[in-house]
């Protein structure tokens, strides 16, 4: 097989005295969806932000196999080059769609903006692609010119996903993409994400505290506790045969329905 798409080596991040994430190493291979699970405050989101270049780690390195630029040290890049990478080869889906969308412009413009950022200039093409993506994320086309402020929470999240995937990223970071949504809305979003991951052969790093979401969407899991990865493996291995005391406790705490 080829090479890992993303490699973390000893990634550590402190906030003052507190160590939010400690000595994390792993490799993400093309087509893999890696879940990071753990309770609130375990360092999941800090790690995700370090991987995506949104936070600078205090120790360790993150390297990415770029289609355009070969192997790059994510934190060694200039701010401008990292931003370019983030909008051409990566996507980032926030838990709160308001942070990932521009709330003051239309849905169509939210999608079109990403296309223009990667060089699309023809208005008709941009509008057509925006329409295709709205349909793909199951938003009625007559909402194309509405602002996301008029959208429901589930629609906003789907729009944020469309905005992120329209530029055909190779790697998508997701922070609790289904958090705060009703279960029926969540099921629809999960179904959508599953389909998109398969169809576009996406690689992804997904942070979630919901083990059911992790089971449906991820191939592999890392379990974090107190900033450290305490267990990792195939998703079904970690959930069906948990080894670490903390993972056993997490799995035993799932409410059956």
């Amino acid at each position, binding site marked *: *097989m080829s090479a890992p798409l993303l490699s973390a080596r000893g990634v550590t991040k402190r906030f003052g005295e507190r160590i939010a994430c400690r000595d994390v190493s792993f490799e993400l*291979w093309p087509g*893999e969806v890696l879940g990071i699970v753990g309770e609130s405050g375990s360092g999941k989101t800090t790690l995700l932000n370090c991987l995506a270049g949104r936070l600078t780690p205090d120790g360790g390195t993150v390297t990415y196999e770029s289609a355009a630029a070969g192997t790059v040290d994510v934190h060694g890049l200039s701010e401008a080059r990292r931003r370019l990478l983030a909008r051409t080869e990566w996507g980032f889906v926030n838990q709160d769609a308001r942070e990932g969308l521009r709330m003051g412009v239309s849905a169509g413009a939210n999608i079109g903006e990403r296309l223009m950022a990667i060089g699309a200039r023809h208005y008709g093409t941009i509008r057509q692609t925006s329409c295709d993506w709205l349909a793909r994320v199951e938003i009625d086309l007559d909402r194309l010119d509405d602002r996301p402020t008029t959208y429901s929470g589930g629609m906003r999240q789907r729009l944020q996903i469309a905005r992120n995937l329209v530029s055909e990223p190779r790697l998508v970071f997701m922070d609790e993409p289904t958090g705060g949504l009703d279960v029926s809305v969540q*099921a*629809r979003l*999960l*179904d959508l994400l*599953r389909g998109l991951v*398969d169809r576009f052969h996406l690689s992804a790093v997904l942070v979630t505290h919901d083990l059911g979401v992790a*089971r*449906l969407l991820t*191939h*592999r899991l890392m379990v974090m506790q107190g900033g450290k990865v305490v267990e990792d*493996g*195939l998703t*079904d*291995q970690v959930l*069906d*045969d948990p*080894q*670490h*005391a903390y993972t*056993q*406790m997490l799995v*035993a705490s799932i409410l059956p329905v």
Partner: protein
Amino acid sequence: MLPVLRVSALNKAFVMHAQGDLALPVLQDVALSVAPGECLALVGPSGAGKSTLLRSLYGNYRPQSGSIQIRHRDQWVELVGAEPRVVLDVRRHTMGFVSQFLRVIPRIGAVDVVAEPMVRRGAPAEEARRRAEFLLGLLGIPARLWALPPATFSGGEQQRVNIARSLIADYPVLLLDEPTASLDTANRDGVIDLIRQRREAGTAIVGIFHDTTVRDAVATRLHNVALPGAQP
């Protein structure tokens, strides 16, 4: 025939940290091998570790030591301690698993649940759907149910969806955990026929069949499973 699956010195214990690190040894020095066209039936009392062995073979449970080797892409691949992507590739191309229960995916219709493994292996979606419909029909699932998510299906219908999903991809190695547990006689006989066809076509099968009619109909060999220390 040379084996396609060989297991040696396999050990697996469950350590329960919430119970003061209580260790429950389940598999001790297990050895077996299976060749194409063979169906090895695991036999032993309830709780003896049959499902644990089957799940370890699939890479679902993680043994502490020993070896599970499978013939994959014309090479021997070690599954104990293997990287996740290696296990996933083996599951995508070489080894299928029929569990007792279907893990339902919200909003996905039965036909797409069944077609998925074939699509994942790169088959065109239309071809996979046609084959999925064929298998669902063969297993007696009424056509009006094909587009519906199986969450509301009966236990027997769900199990047949599960069987169809595992048979669609023609895996060279097939693991079956009570594939007929919740089926009536007619449907059970249909599943027996399908398993025999697979075996005769050269699939290597390891299975748990509590129903002795099913076991006698499909198994070519028995393998006794007992807890460490239990009297045989």
